[in-house]
């Protein structure tokens, strides 16, 4: 049997397509198309993830996936079909499926013509440091993390992932845009006998974070939360680390969509222009922010604009797809989803203005309160008041007289995000935060008064 060559160092780079190859795929589709208009989305994902638990690697995976998605338009009727193969026969099948679906649907008189060529900002987020990480290199990092855990009497669990994605959007009106970036993510939970600590980071550049330093922080949290005390539920001053802030405010993202407002399901209905958060809260959407990631164009190909969403506590602007913009008499902001869809648009590169307080200063300024590392299983209870429920997890602490006094059993909260953002007393510098419930954003740690914890669990 012939041994297939495999070069781990260049695995990712070898999986992405050149500009000529991307054009070739699109041209293959356009050549066979009899549609009024046609559009081709090409996405490639090359990801590898090393997963560890109980101080050893138990899962270790790598994947390469391609998808070619074809949208056709026939007399105001549009539909999409996707294949994961780029050979001419598969592309013709996808084209035919898209055409058949499009012809099956009623005409949409407000469907807009596809956009012509656009100018996009250039962002560079492809790092060789991330693309060249091998399975062995990830394993060596995990080995060091597990040794650290064992030395300190903990059990470590987590992931170390690296990869790259490439996307291209081409249409029959001469539009072409392509983007590729790398990504890296490290997450670790340190489990003690009756406590746990957690830390996580993500970035396009793997060298932007230090897995061992994160592991040390998680271990320290596990150690400081030993023998957790139980506090009664109630309203407490709470210091939320960035991951906890992210997973709460992340639930707001779709509320900034013009389509959500029109459909009556945004919490900003009848609240635009009103003071609904504290004057220390300002939020943008900004794909070009140095801590953000993602393509500088949206699913329709429109350049993503920087949009001021909330100005000193007052929601000022929404984001618009092309259709929503036309309906509202505005310009599209470059936040549309790929058509056809029913959701319109959303900002996916949220950036909160930060403050100058460090976490240590927040703790020192707190007579009695809680420090929360991470939240879990957050769900929306009341969509208009934006009440969310969820649990604290992996590092919840009691603060007394400006110091961390003890670890705590985990709480359930039922808290309005709008109310929370009206009660922010201190803000730290905004950082790229990674959680579990929301896509990564740039958010600060916050000290919040009267955070509503309603019940306590058993650990």
């Amino acid at each position, binding site marked *: 049997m012939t041994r297939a060559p495999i070069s781990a160092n260049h695995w990712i780079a070898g999986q992405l397509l050149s500009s000529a190859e991307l054009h070739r795929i699109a041209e293959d589709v356009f050549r066979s198309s009899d549609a009024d208009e046609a559009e081709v989305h090409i996405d490639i994902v090359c990801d*590898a993830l090393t997963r560890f638990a109980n*101080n050893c690697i*138990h899962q270790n995976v*790598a994947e390469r996936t391609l998808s070619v998605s074809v949208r056709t338009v026939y007399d105001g009727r549009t539909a999409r079909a996707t294949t*994961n193969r780029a050979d001419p026969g598969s592309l013709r099948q996808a084209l035919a499926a898209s055409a058949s679906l499009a012809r099956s649907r009623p005409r949409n008189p407000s469907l807009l013509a596809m956009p012509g060529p656009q100018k996009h900002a250039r962002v560079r987020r492809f790092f060789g440091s991330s693309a060249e990480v091998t399975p062995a290199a990830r394993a060596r990092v995990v080995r060091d993390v597990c040794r650290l855990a064992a030395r300190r009497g903990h059990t470590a669990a987590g992931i170390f992932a690296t990869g790259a994605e490439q996307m291209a959007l081409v249409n029959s009106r001469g539009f072409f845009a392509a983007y590729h970036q790398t990504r890296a993510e490290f997450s670790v939970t340190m489990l003690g006998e009756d406590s746990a600590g957690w830390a996580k980071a993500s970035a396009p550049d793997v060298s932007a974070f230090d897995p061992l330093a994160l592991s040390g922080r998680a271990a320290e949290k596990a150690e400081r939360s030993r023998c957790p005390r139980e506090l009664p539920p109630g309203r407490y001053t709470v210091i939320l680390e960035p991951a906890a802030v992210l997973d709460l405010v992340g639930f707001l993202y779709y509320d900034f969509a013009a389509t959500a407002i029109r459909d009556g399901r945004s919490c900003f*209905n009848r609240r635009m222009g009103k003071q609904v958060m504290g004057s220390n809260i300002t939020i943008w959407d900004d794909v070009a922010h140095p801590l953000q990631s993602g393509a500088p164009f949206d699913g329709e190909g429109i350049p993503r604009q920087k949009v001021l969403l909330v100005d000193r506590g007052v929601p000022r602007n929404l984001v618009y797809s092309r259709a929503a913009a036309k309906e509202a008499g505005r310009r599209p902001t470059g936040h549309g989803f790929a058509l056809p869809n029913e959701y319109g648009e959303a900002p996916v590169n949220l950036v909160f203005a930060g403050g100058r307080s460090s976490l240590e200063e927040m703790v020192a300024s707190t007579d009695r309160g809680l420090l929360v590392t991470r939240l879990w299983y957050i769900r929306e209870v009341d969509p208009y008041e934006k009440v969310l429920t969820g649990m604290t997890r992996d590092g919840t602490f009691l603060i007394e007289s400006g110091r961390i006094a003890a670890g705590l059993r985990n709480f359930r909260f039922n808290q309005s995000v709008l109310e929370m953002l009206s009660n922010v007393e201190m803000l730290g510098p905004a950082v790229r935060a990674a959680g579990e419930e929301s896509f990564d954003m740039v958010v600060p740690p916050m000290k919040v008064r009267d955070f509503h914890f309603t019940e306590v669990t058993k650990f």
Partner: protein
Amino acid sequence: MWDLSSLALETARVRGATYADSRVMDVRQRELSTKNGQVGAIVESSSCGIGIRVLAGGAWGFAATDRLTREGVQQCAAQAVAVARASALVKSGGVRLAPEQAYVDSWQSPFVKDPFELPVEGQLHLLLAADAEMRRVKGVTLAETGMHFRKLDVWFASSIGSRIHQCKVTSGCGIVATSFRGNEIQKRSYPSSFGGQHALQGYELIESLDLLRHAPRVAEEAVALHSAPQCPERTGTIVLEGSQLGLQIHESIGHPIELDRVLGQEANFAGMSFLTLDKLGKLRYGSEVVSVVADARLAHGPGLGTFAYDDEGVPAQCTEIIQGGLFHGYLSSRETAAAIGLPRSSGAMRAESWNRLPIVRMTNVSIVPGSWSPQDLVADTDDGIWMETNRSWSIDDRRYHFQFSTEIGWEIKGGKKTRMLKNPSYSGITTEFWNSCDAVCSRDFWTLWGTPNCGKGQPMQTMGTGHGAAPARFRNVKIGSAFSES
């Protein structure tokens, strides 16, 4: 496909794998939706690839590719072995697998009407008609409908000699009416929320659900909720309708019995479980009326957790999870079963697609029907709240403390369903809650609900699970804390 499977296994063997399995999967999906009279999504997709899992150097490796050429498969198998050798740098002991036979078999899930062979026009027409029916009701601000179909061909091969081909067809649909008035957004869904009902069936499922008949009702209820009184905050009796009980089973029984969670393998993300090994056969999980099975066999019904073999070639089984209230069994894989000394895997390894590693997942985790009718249950309840259709769900990372809210509630007074209540919610501790169950309705009122959106694993995998449930009553439950002001 068998040629590629064999090539994958042989390449892995030559590279030094001591065990290997491969899954070639061909997935076809169709998604249709409408919103306020307009077509939303109208999308089809097909995806075909191979996932290769190997044991080398006593550790696992997995690689997946969509390049279904000889060279592509060879590279993928070689990569899986290289990944496994990297895993071996940080292993504890070796991987042991519970014994399993080799099977050569082919299985097709039964269906009457292939949804992919039916015209899209007819499917859209039904959705648009239901959409229009909901919008006919004054006060409805948003009408949404959706249908989803999936056809899955899987060719599984393993180095112990299994060659199993399975073909499955699933269908699902649902409608939602939303009403925004004042400072409230209220909604009602049918037949269930978050996508409706899903099952291992063809288009006959959609036809059986009679969307048009239910559209006006859900629309009227969504609007009426604005005028209904708030569900009170208190401790008392609740009756959960079947779909809500299905989700309660999913979250507070289905997840904690996953043996990989129990063994700490999900500690960083999905979490662990309060069901530590010392509790097996000893814990009083629920009251005597609570018996639960995990049953992947077709005999249990056409659920999203129904199959002939799991994704590591273990035949579908029925595992008793809770017997008369006593905790009796876990969901396991060949590796996790061996780790705790079980003679055999329960057959619960499932992968979302060809590019995902099989992990321990729920199959159909269902409560065994009782003897009550809903009418008798209400008549037997002096003071309680009937809660229907999930609106939100949350549970801690060891599956102890949960809080659910439902779209609608009905007060039960003196054995009768009386006024509508808005914003119902309840919360509790898993074992206390199941021990407070004193009545489960009978087979006549039992439905195998489909949950299409269960997330677990890193990278994330979304899996469909089944949950047979009938209305059931619980005593001394904490009610209303989601909207508590205290």
